[in-house]
């Protein structure tokens, strides 16, 4: 059995807003890099499945050659191998086509896991496009997976509840975070073991882009103006608060 997890290396997704700056519509390169938030949930789920089912676990990524050092964390968490297609495109179609190329080289694949959205672009498009290219079913917002006679039993989380699905055969799932897939912190021995695990680097294949182009990117500056309302007398405080909110046209 072979499971693939898609992981993208992104700039620190928790840079304080006051310190955030854009260069050429992208986060300034000075921020540290790391595997995306939901991708780590997907990796954790993959590792759990590997441990339960004795599967092989490969991490596929499209990105910068230097990012291997960050992808090693996935190996330390328990993945067996990394395949990295070296490229710089942000286009979901280009990314998906290259990831497909990488997956096709891995032989038979039983399941593809992705994060629900990357922590830099926050679009959630790549897994769906990739599923289309691979001609596989796509299940977004999955949080739990179990092997079930020849296919998979999948828990999908929606805003209002949970849905159980049955997938026959292979498919692409995008994973959202739940307490059960909080990424593990690799033990030191696993970190050293990860240094010896294989990393395959592939060259990018040229391919067409989506017919969507980016016109501008704006990150609103968070400003906080604090006005303290004296709260000695609660009734009076509520009255003042209401009046102020109306004056400022929030109500």
């Amino acid at each position, binding site marked *: 059995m072979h499971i693939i997890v898609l992981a993208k290396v992104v700039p*620190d997704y*928790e*840079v*304080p*807003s*006051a*310190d955030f700056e854009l260069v050429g519509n992208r986060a300034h390169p000075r921020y*540290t890099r*790391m595997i995306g938030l939901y991708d780590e949930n997907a990796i954790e789920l993959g590792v759990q499945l590997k441990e339960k089912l004795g599967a092989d676990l490969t991490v596929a990524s499209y990105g910068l050659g230097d990012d291997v050092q960050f992808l090693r964390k996935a190996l330390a968490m328990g993945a067996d191998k990394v395949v990295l297609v070296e490229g710089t495109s942000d286009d979901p179609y280009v990314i998906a086509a290259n990831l497909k190329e990488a997956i096709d080289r891995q032989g038979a694949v039983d399941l593809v896991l992705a994060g629900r959205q990357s922590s830099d672009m926050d679009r959630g498009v790549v897994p769906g496009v990739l599923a289309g290219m691979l001609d596989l079913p796509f299940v977004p917002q999955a949080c739990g997976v179990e092997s079930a006679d020849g296919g998979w039993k999948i828990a999908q989380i929606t805003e209002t509840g949970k849905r159980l699905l049955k997938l026959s055969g292979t498919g692409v799932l995008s994973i959202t975070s739940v307490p059960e897939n909080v990424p*593990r*912190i*690799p*033990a*030191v*021995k696993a*970190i*050293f073991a990860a*240094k*010896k695990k294989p990393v395959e680097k592939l060259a990018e294949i040229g391919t067409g882009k989506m017919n969507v182009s980016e016109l501008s990117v704006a990150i609103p500056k968070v400003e906080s103006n604090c006005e303290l309302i004296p709260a000695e007398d609660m009734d009076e405080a509520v009255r003042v608060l209401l009046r102020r909110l109306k004056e400022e046209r929030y109500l």
Partner: protein
Amino acid sequence: MERIPYWNIGYGLLIDLLSLPALAVFGYGIYGHWKRIRQGKASVKLGLTLDALKLGPLHIRSFLTRGIVGTRIYRKLCTGIAHGLLFWGMVLLSAGTILVFANVLFRLPVFKGEFNHWFMGAALDAAGVAALAGVVYLLIRRLFPPERLTCFRANSGFIQVEIGIIAIVVTGFFIEGARIAQNGADPGSFVGNWLGSMLSVGRGGLELHRYLWWTHGLLALATIAYIPFSPLVHLVLAPANAGLDVPVPGPKMGVIDFESFEGDGDETPSLGASKLADFSRKNLLDASTCLKCGRCHEVCPAAQTGKKLSPKGVMVTLAEYLQHGRMDDESLLEAISTDAIYSCTTCAACMEACPVSVNQPNAILQMRQHLLMERSEMPEIMGQANRSLEARHHPFIGTGFGPNDWRKGIDVPFYEKGTTEYLLWIGCSVAYEERTQSIARAMVAILKHAGVSFGILEENRCTGDPAKQMGNEFLFTEIAGQNIEEFNDLGVTKVITMCPHCFNSFTRHYPLLGAKFDVVPHAVLLRGLIEAGKITLTNSGQAICYHDPCYLGRHNQVLSEPRSVVSSVGQLVEMPRHGCESFCCGAGGGNYWTEEEGTRINQTRAKEALDTGAKTIATACPFCMLMLTDGLKKFTEEQMVKDIAELVCSRMESGAQGVPQTLVST
């Protein structure tokens, strides 16, 4: 008439012969302890250059002071005096007994003249009275014990030996009395003469004397033989433990060499300690020596605020496992509990209080290393701090600040190779929290004002110390390696720290990883600048209470310098617990990133500071500053906590050049 040894005793020499089997049993018992302790590993090298006098592995000074004289025990005055009376009383009495042997065997003239009068008579009687008074006090205290003696487990066995000692001393006096009743008064033997005057002369008296003599002798020999099997074994173990303890305060963790993990072999050693066999011999000696006195329990910030941890509890558990030979039993960690292992603030108050030189946090931290590095088990928030440290080089999760925000609007020079003298080390604790940023700004203002040649790194990161304290030695080693490389590239030789944790890490652990630079904590530097007249301060005369950061005071003995700085801007007042006996703010050991159970340590300490009545609480550690500021919120809305650098900056005579006061004061 001159005293005749073995008077009225037939075959008295039998006692001398019987002492041989007693000593043999004693030796066998001690060997048993050694056999158990020997199962531990050799200790890690600390690489510290100490100019301490050594005999093999034994540090002579601490062996004599903490080991033989037992200096620490006097921190509890009554117990200390009782113990002193008993110990030194028994030492003199044993010396007297040996002199009697010497008289019998080699005719040493001890029963003649002044020596007989003052030593064999008066001094030995006084020693007997002292020992008796001491042991009776200790027995009463055992019968009505304070909580510290009984929590977790009381040391059973002390009551028996105390009764035994009372019996030995009392019979000793009565033998003397009975002999004097028959033979007339001895010069100087005030107790014996008094008892003798009351005891009857005649056949009954002779028999009583003979009977008591044998009881006394045999009881004494039995007690000697029993020492290794009773709590009295601390007579041997305590001095050994004191002498073998490297005389540097703090847990002394050393560093771990991860080289062996790089190779191909699967035979990598298990990290940290999960079972007794993983501990060093010193750790096992600690566990064997622990007297269960609970002095550590009484001063431990975790134990005193309702956490699961008690340093005594840890030692008791280790000792029990050792006693039962459970060297490879991994249930040890569960027995102590993960919560307990992570609640230690590494403040070392327990070590300071321990009368027998036990290093409790060292054992606790080794178990923590195992939980973190082998099992990835740690409290959630610490886990997040760890990940942040790994990915962002600082552990301040959820900070609203970037690494350079603290110096927005002020001009701070970068360290330049070959021209700058001091590196002002920023680290993480003064960069990512608003309240502490002004410490760094104040320091910059002071250094500029005093004309010190200094600069900062272009990119500031943490020393890695929080990782180490949380048990992640691996991450610490990586971060420290990067820092050392950068320092070497820049040719840094002198470093100023504002955080005692950085100072401690730089001086204790970095040298083991190849660092070669001098470090000065800002408290010492500030005092130097004031003394050299580089900065002149106006003294407000107002009361300022000083809180000792554990890693500056207890761990590194920087006690007088910050006090002298405080005294030059105000009137120093002390909290009840200060100096080496200061109480932790609660942040150490990575516990800044924790969800505290029970009472909050920082509130306990803040209240103690508030109770001094001072309107300003000074400290010299950014973590203490954050913890006390937060702890104080429960009691007052006033911002009372100030770093010594902030205090100095606000009272510099010609003001802070180049730094607007608004950036400095808070």
